[in-house]
């Protein structure tokens, strides 16, 4: 069997994970981690040139191509950030070299699991991949072994496991619904086969299955009221992991949900998944926006902002239709880029100041101008001010849904505005207040952060036609 690009984006992280677990010396392994992530990213780009054929286990279509490229890109930039981040952690003694070996191996395992979840053409395999991704992140969140980190990891483990358990029950129910139409055996879990025959599935069983899948994978997406693990996991783990969690893992869970939504869309007798998703999305937006006002921890604050944005994205996909899907997809991409850039900045800031407490950080634009203004730019982008990319995508979400559901869209806009107020209220003192905390210059790598921000800024002004056609195709696919 020859290995095509689809196999390669799984093999590269898998082999690197094994290598990184063996090799000593964190300087070397940090570099190797970057190289592996870059290789995976380049391989994923090759998917646009030579399209491998989908098989029974691996699948490539327009939808997951977008996800794969985004995942491998942010995976790569985060590995660059991670290299300078952990350098500081070693110096301050928060992590030991032995832990770093483990950390790097886990990083690549996580990349492997996420890629596997994205390319899997089998709903069982996809579930296993999401489970592995959850496990690796649980271990990484707990890596500092402080009270808070352990509590966060424990909470994440318990809620995440319950989530994936419910998702498995949903998966089994999908198989049960498919069995009369598809027949017994391996075909009953192959996604492409399932979609072909979905019209003949038992609608009642499919409905129950979707509820379980929504609750299960929805936990991983971080939708309120299933979000309880998310702020802790983001706040207490190493910052590169916060960036990957917010920027990528939430998307992967969302991707799983979208696949099942597409399946339900084929079956006209089944419930429309849209209203359920819209409701959960709106609850998440409003809830997270209100929670932003009382945050004391800077990473935690941006974690709540992630819940808000996942809410917006799920709302857009729930409304459906080519335009709203396009907007949702664009918003997801913009959010991944912006939020990981913010976490890159926050990670370095927390290292310089030696704290994550908002009250103890002040006057960043004076003490660390580059980091400070970088974060400020990120915040301006994330709250959706023009002319940056998130403004563009939020505008599209609102304009494409307003005519169909004016009241719901009004609630969404209200949530976005509340969140804007909350973030600015909290970030103002951090940026422009009296300089507080240590003022040592940061040994930071600014390239990943500003690359992301530049992309987001560019998307706000000009979307390349290739991207527009690509997203339009996916939006049609999503129905």
């Amino acid at each position, binding site marked *: 069997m020859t290995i095509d690009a689809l196999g390669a984006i799984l093999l590269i992280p898998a082999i690197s994970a094994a290598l990184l677990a063996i090799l000593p010396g964190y300087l070397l392994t940090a570099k190797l981690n970057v190289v592996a992530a870059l290789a995976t990213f380049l391989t994923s780009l090759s998917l646009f040139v030579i399209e491998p054929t989908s098989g029974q286990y691996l699948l490539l279509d327009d939808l997951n191509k977008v996800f794969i490229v985004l995942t491998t890109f942010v995976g790569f930039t985060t590995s660059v950030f991670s290299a300078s981040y952990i350098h500081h952690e070693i110096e301050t003694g928060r992590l030991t070299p032995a832990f770093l070996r483990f950390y790097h191996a886990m990083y690549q395992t996580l990349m492997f699991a996420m890629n596997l979840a994205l390319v899997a053409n089998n709903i069982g395999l996809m579930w296993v991949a999401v489970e592995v991704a959850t496990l690796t992140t649980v271990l990484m969140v707990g890596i500092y072994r402080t009270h808070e980190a352990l509590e966060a990891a424990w909470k994440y483990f*318990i809620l995440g496991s319950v989530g994936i358990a419910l998702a498995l029950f949903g998966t089994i129910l999908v198989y049960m619904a498919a069995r009369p139409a598809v027949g017994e055996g391996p075909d009953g879990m192959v996604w492409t086969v399932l979609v072909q025959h979905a019209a003949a599935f038992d609608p009642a069983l499919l409905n129950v299955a979707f509820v379980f899948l929504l609750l299960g994978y929805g936990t991983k997406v971080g939708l309120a009221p299933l979000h309880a693990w998310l702020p802790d996991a983001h706040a207490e783990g190493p910052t590169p992991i916060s960036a990957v969690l917010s920027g990528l893992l939430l998307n992967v869970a969302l991707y799983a949900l979208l696949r099942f939504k597409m399946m339900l869309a084929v079956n006209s007798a089944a419930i429309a998944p849209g209203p359920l998703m819209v409701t959960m999305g709106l609850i998440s937006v409003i809830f997270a926006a209100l929670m932003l006002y009382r945050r004391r921890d800077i990473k935690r604050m941006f974690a709540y902002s992630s819940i808000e944005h996942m809410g917006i994205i799920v709302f857009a996909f729930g409304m459906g239709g080519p335009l709203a899907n396009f907007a949702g997809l664009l918003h997801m991409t913009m959010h991944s880029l912006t939020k990981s850039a913010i976490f890159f900045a926050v990670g370095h800031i927390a290292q310089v100041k030696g704290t994550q407490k908002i009250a103890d950080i002040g006057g960043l634009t004076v003490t660390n101008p580059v980091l400070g203004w970088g974060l400020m730019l990120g915040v301006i982008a994330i709250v959706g001010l023009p002319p940056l990319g998130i403004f563009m995508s939020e505008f599209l979400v609102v304009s494409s849904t307003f005519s169909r559901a004016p009241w719901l869209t009004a609630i969404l806009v209200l949530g976005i505005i509340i969140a804007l107020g909350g973030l600015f209220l909290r970030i103002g003192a951090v940026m422009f207040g009296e300089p507080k905390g240590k003022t040592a210059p940061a040994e930071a790598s600014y390239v990943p952060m500003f690359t992301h921000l530049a992309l987001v800024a560019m998307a706000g002004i000009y979307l390349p036609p290739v991207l527009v056609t690509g997203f339009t195709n996916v939006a049609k696919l999503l129905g």
Partner: protein
Amino acid sequence: MSSLQFDIAHLLAGSLVLASFMMLYQDRLYALLNVYALHAGVLALSVAWQAYVQQAPHLYVTALIALIFKAIIIPVALHRIIRRLGIHREIENVIGIGLTMMAGIGLVALSMVVMLRVTPGADALAREDLAFALSVVLLGLLIMVTRRNAVSQVVGFMSLENGLVLAATGAKGMPLVVEISVAFSVLIAFIVIGIFLFRIRERFDSVDVQALDRFRGERR
């Protein structure tokens, strides 16, 4: 399928639900573990019976995993951990036993109503299996929310997972069942035997999750 085969499958799946109920009211860790071992043993029997009825030899692997790993290794390991941590005292139920049992009965009724209503087309064995499996899953969740102790929460989670294995084996001809049960065992092995409890012990000298909750919410 003969009615005897059906009855035995029914009996075993029903026993699993009963074992879940027994776990609900155990207020000592050792007793809880023993009931869990029983739970896993019943699961192994049930899966083996399904393997025989469906003539699906690969399911024997799942049954064997359930028997050796879940019914023997995990309980023994947890016994040791509990002894070493010195926490073999009473577990606090967050709400009273009576209320917990009532809630459990409610959940079983709920899952019967839901599953039997949506699966009129499926064959009788699969229907009953799914309904029982959902009951076990929901009871597992109930065990998890009514306990504060980290070990008993893990036990609750494992019983929940047994329900999922029951559902997966009941769905005739489902692919990847063995792989999924292995993946789940890995998940549990990771957590139970390994790092977690030891780390929690290391830092807190307690596996009472309430001690963890001191830091819930914002750090001040």
